[in-house]
Each structure stands twice: as structure tokens, then as C-alpha cells.
């Protein structure tokens, strides 16, 4: 598994967790199905993209560090 895909996977889960935690702390209401799905999809997509970006940057840094 590459660093980018690993970061994307972690970011996706983090996006979902962030949306659910926002509801648990009263920042967001997920009572309606459409609103809940919208929030989860937005969280998952943003988390996936940002996680992939972070994984890619960290992987590139790790490669540069390991070069002789």
C-alpha cells in the first residue's frame, strides 16, 4: 500500500468521525436522513482528499530522507 492510499483511507475515516463527533457535540444535527448523508459524504470526500494529500507529502518526505 502506498503512503497516498494509506493517508486517503485514514482521512476518509477521520472525515466520517469528524461529522459524527460534530453531531455528538451539538454542532450539527443528523436527525434527517438526507442531511445526515450529506454531512457524512462531505466529511468522507474532504477527508479522503486531504488525507491523500497529507499521505503523499509525508511519503515524499520519507523518500527524500531515505535517499543517500
Amino acid at each position: 500500500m502506498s503512503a497516498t492510499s494509506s493517508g486517503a483511507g485514514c482521512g476518509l475515516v477521520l472525515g466520517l468521525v469528524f461529522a459524527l463527533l460534530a453531531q455528538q457535540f451539538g454542532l450539527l444535527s443528523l436527525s434527517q436522513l438526507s442531511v445526515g448523508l450529506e454531512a457524512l459524504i462531505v466529511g468522507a470526500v474532504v477527508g479522503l482528499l486531504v488525507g491523500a494529500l497529507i499521505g503523499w507529502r509525508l511519503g515524499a518526505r520519507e523518500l527524500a530522507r531515505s535517499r543517500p
Partner: protein
Amino acid sequence: MRNGRSGPQSQGRRVLGPVVVALGLLLLAVPSAGASPAASARLTTASLSGITATVTFNGKDISQAPAPSSAFSVNLASSFDLIYTWSSVSTGSGVSASLPTVNDARLAMLFFGFSLSTRDVILSNAVPSVGGRIYMNWSPPSVLHVLLAGTYELTASLLDPNGSTLWSQNFYVDVAAPFTIGAVLPVILVLIGVYELYGLLTSGRQARPPKTAPKPWSDPSAAPAAGAGTGSPPPTTGGDDPEDPPTAPGGPS
């Protein structure tokens, strides 16, 4: 090859940049998603079929909490008193022609569109009338008190004997977790978040080239030494059938 690398602090800033941008995007996205239920609550407040009603939740009119921002703060460990007061909608010449029959007062707590808890007060001898009052005491299931926190939507509705909704109104409650963050669901979510954040911050290790490990069993003198250390018997070629019961040394006395 980049020669202009300026140390780990600069690299850390470059990595933290996307994190800050992501959090900003999510914070921007969350209020836009949360704005929808308030609008939908306002739309469903209107009476549906010739009656108008007011409902009090522990003495407060539920029309005071039409949005998550104005939700009632509640603790699900306690019980709640609701009073449904309804009346027929009068026209210009008087009461509407067909009097409604209110048979059922219902309170439902919703999550993702599904009902977490429903409480019904059914009138056994409902007759058409110009108005009435229904008392309800709602004690949420104790598992919800342990499990949940946050903002939830409740729907108070009045139904006729056929089960059709005569009137309904949505309102919001802000459920306080035991010990502020003691509910099971947020604790589990925080633990998952910490685990995934650690996985994200260490995802760069996936790009690390594999180290050339020394081949196992390359030193023939190391194998007997390792076996002797564990005290395990030497492998045998026969008698490894798992069906064979082990024989105790000496046998039963």
C-alpha cells in the same frame, strides 16, 4: 533533487498546511449542512388537516426550539412532561365543517431519519370534538442516556384513528452526556479518531524502502542454539497426526 530543504520545521509547516485547510473546509461545510433542518422544521410546523395545536415540553412551548441552535438542554436520565393542546381551525363563519378526531398523541426521537424512541398516548374513546388536551410523560430508554449525546430532533404529532397525521411539529433537544463526554458513542468516536490520526501522520512510512534484512537460517550453528533455548523436542517425522492422543509418560497409575 531539492537543495533548498530548510529543515524539519519547514517540512512540518508544509505538512500541517493541508491539515489546517481541511479543518477549515470541514468547518465551512458543517454549518451549511446543519442549516437545512431548521428550514425543514419551519416548513413542517404548519397544521396539516384542520387543527392547530401547541405542545409544551416540561412547561416550554416546543415552538421555541425550531432549530438546533435553540434546542432545549435535556438530560435523558430524567422524564419529561408534555401537554398537547389542540383545537379545530375555525373559519370565518365558525368551526370547520367536519370536526377532527384526535386518537393518538405521538412523540418520536429521530436519528438519520429513523426513530430512536417513540412514545404514544392513545385515547380509547376518541370522538370528534372541537379541541382537547392530552398529557404525556416520556421516559427515554436508559440505553439512550448511556449511549448518546448531542443534538436530536423530536417530532410531536397528533394522529387520527386511521393513523393519518393531523398535525405535527419538529423541535430540537440538546442531550447532555453523563460527565460531559461520558456517553459511549462520543468516547468510541474519539478513540477511533485518535487511532486514525496516528495512522495518517505515520502514513509516510509506507513509502520507506524496505530494509535488507539478514536471511533467516543463514548461520547453520544458530538453529540448534535457538531450539535448545526453548526446550522444545526435536521434530519427528512420524506421529504428528493430530488424531493421535498424546501418551503421558509412565501412563496412568
